[in-house]
């Protein structure tokens, strides 16, 4: 049986996602049904992301795709495709929130916890399998960040915790980029401008989520 890089990557990604989900379930104190709902929503958005990646990849290489579909489908997408897909997925999340079909507060908590822990496992496995120095250094950054996140979890206000985690991750990525000449997350290059833009976007998302939930609570009190 031929085990290709694509198959290995998919297995590493799946193991990382399962690890992240287990940590989220153990860490979060919400009701079981709520956690299940958030994990389902995260999975749904992850599937959306994958679908968008394929669609954009095909659109950008339509001429090659019509001639030789496998050449496009079998080739790993680059960061430009990933960034575009992430922006569209973010738009879907915002749309669902505006329609009242998404609890943005719990979703952002789950998303950041899962991102940190899954990335940590992903880089760890990558380092163990490929003996990759960059993966080792990034894993150390993520592990330290997660331990701080874990210690502060439920000790400081959640929105400040999440924003601190996002900003610290961004600083880590930018530093790694300048030290190694490249920085990746889940195999995709994270250019400093995109990491900063992503952090700004997620910070706005968190602030909006917690701002609107506070407003809702006040209205309920009245």
């Amino acid at each position, binding site marked *: 049986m*031929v*085990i*290709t*890089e*694509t*198959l*290995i990557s998919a297995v590493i990604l799946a193991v990382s996602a399962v690890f992240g989900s287990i*940590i989220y379930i*153990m*860490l979060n104190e919400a009701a079981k049904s709520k956690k299940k709902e958030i994990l389902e929503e995260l999975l749904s958005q992850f599937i959306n992301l994958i679908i968008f990646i394929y669609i954009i990849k095909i659109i950008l290489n339509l001429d*090659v795709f019509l001639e*030789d579909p*496998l*050449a*496009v489908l*079998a*080739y*790993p*997408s*680059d*960061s430009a495709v990933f960034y575009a897909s992430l922006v569209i997925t973010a738009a879907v999340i915002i749309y669902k929130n505006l329609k009242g079909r998404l609890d943005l507060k719990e979703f952002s908590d789950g998303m950041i916890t899962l991102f940190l822990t899954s990335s*940590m*496992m992903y880089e*760890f496995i990558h*380092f*163990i399998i*490929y*003996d*990759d*120095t*960059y993966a*080792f250094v990034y*894993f*150390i950054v993520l*592990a330290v960040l*997660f*331990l701080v996140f*874990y210690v502060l979890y439920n000790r400081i206000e959640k929105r400040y915790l999440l924003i601190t985690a996002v900003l610290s991750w961004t600083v880590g990525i930018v530093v790694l980029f300048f030290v*190694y*000449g*490249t920085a*990746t997350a889940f*195999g*995709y*290059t994270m250019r400093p401008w995109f990491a900063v833009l992503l952090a700004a976007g997620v910070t706005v998302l968190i602030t909006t989520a917690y701002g609107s939930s506070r407003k809702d609570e006040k209205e309920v009190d009245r």
Partner: protein
Amino acid sequence: MKKYIIIAVVVGMLGWSFYEFFGSSDNDTHQEDAGLAPGQTAPNFEVDTLEGNTVKLSDFRGEPVIINFWATWCPPCRAEMPDFERLYNEEDAVILAMNLTHSENNIEGVSGFVDELGLTMPVLLDEEGTVEDSYQLSAYPTTYMIDSEGVTQYVARGAINYETMYREFMVLE
């Protein structure tokens, strides 16, 4: 209890990675045997290029080398070729594009493919399949990234994109 489990898992992962990182780098310096795994010296070969020159892997000792095994009939090989060409031109990387010539219909097809994609990196011809056998290929394309000491540092079975190539090449350098 949950708290301690999570901390124990993360600390365990940290400990393992530190052990692997510092422990394995000591071993690597002593590993001079030929083999296919990362950390082992890549098997030498001598083949002709498409231009008719003879190339030996050992000629490149002292600089990092990327060997990419490919064929014209392999769609993912076709997809990743322009990215290898880009790495060759932009980063001045030594890339040996090893064509599995014994599996091709004819050599004109290989020349046509090279012209069509405008490849300028050296295209090597594995006419008898001996290099493929010595590297025991199980997937197409396969890429070996070899450091300046001739030791394999990274193997990709299947297509990789430019960002992975670039990242692993940076590690080699």
